[in-house]
């Protein structure tokens, strides 16, 4: 049996993507690095949706629509987070998350 036509392969890949995102979220020192890691977590979730959509689900449009919505949410989230980061740069002159204990701007 081909490994690319197996549900467990995609589940393991998406679990590894989730773990990569978690690791980056802990280890990055900047807010933009944490944003990049959150994109990995969202991609793991989307890949999971698509895998179940292909192999298990009765209606093959549902998973694709969910993945499209995840992409839209991720684009909106990236735009807002980048503008927040630029505002934080202006006010604090740094993007070190350890200096942002209080969120007062």
């Amino acid at each position, binding site marked *: 049996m081909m*490994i*690319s036509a197996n*549900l*467990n392969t*995609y*589940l*393991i*890949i998406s*679990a*590894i*993507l*989730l*773990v990569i995102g*978690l*690791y*980056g979220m*802990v*280890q*990055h*020192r*900047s807010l*933009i*690095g944490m*944003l*990049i890691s959150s*994109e*990995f977590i969202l*991609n793991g979730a989307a*890949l999971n949706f*698509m895998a179940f*959509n*292909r*192999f298990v689900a*009765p*209606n*093959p*449009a549902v998973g*694709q*629509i969910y*993945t*499209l919505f995840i*992409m*839209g*949410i*991720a*684009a*909106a*989230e*990236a*735009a*807002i987070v*980048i*503008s927040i*980061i*630029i505002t934080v*740069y202006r006010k604090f*002159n*740094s*993007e*070190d998350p350890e200096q942002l204990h209080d969120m007062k701007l």
Partner: protein
Amino acid sequence: MIVYKYIAEALFYAFVALTFMGGFMAIRSRLLMHAVLGLAISLFGVAGLYFYLGSPFLTMMQILIYVGAVCIIIVLGVMLGNTPDQLAIKNVTRKNLLLALLACSTGFIALFVATISRTEFIPATHKVGDMSIRFIGESLLFQYCLAFELISVILLTAIIGSIILARGGREEKVS
């Protein structure tokens, strides 16, 4: 016929390797710009995986939205903000390395052992519709119309909110 199958399988391994190498580059590289490049490579690999899951439409959308839009936004954010020197030299910290590795491996093992390897996922007996773009469009128009409208409102709110947030500091600087 058999040869084509093996070529497709090799391409699948290549896409998986792209995904993991991009992810590794994004979390271990010292410069932020390299991390964004790693993110783009990894998202391209995931787009290839979507193709193997039978959806060329989502492959194109992944390349358009993620690689084309989100990565460019992040690159703009990296270039617009003035990164401090200590962050520009070394982006990732080694402070909680052991803790992070432990948490990640625990999460992965818990996911893998408890759910993936033990559960028998049973395919649905009868399927409605197909993977075509026409069926997705009809579902978006009729069944998921409310969610579609809501996500357009969310995108509009995000655009207006980010414009208001990002232009807040400019007036103070002028005056």
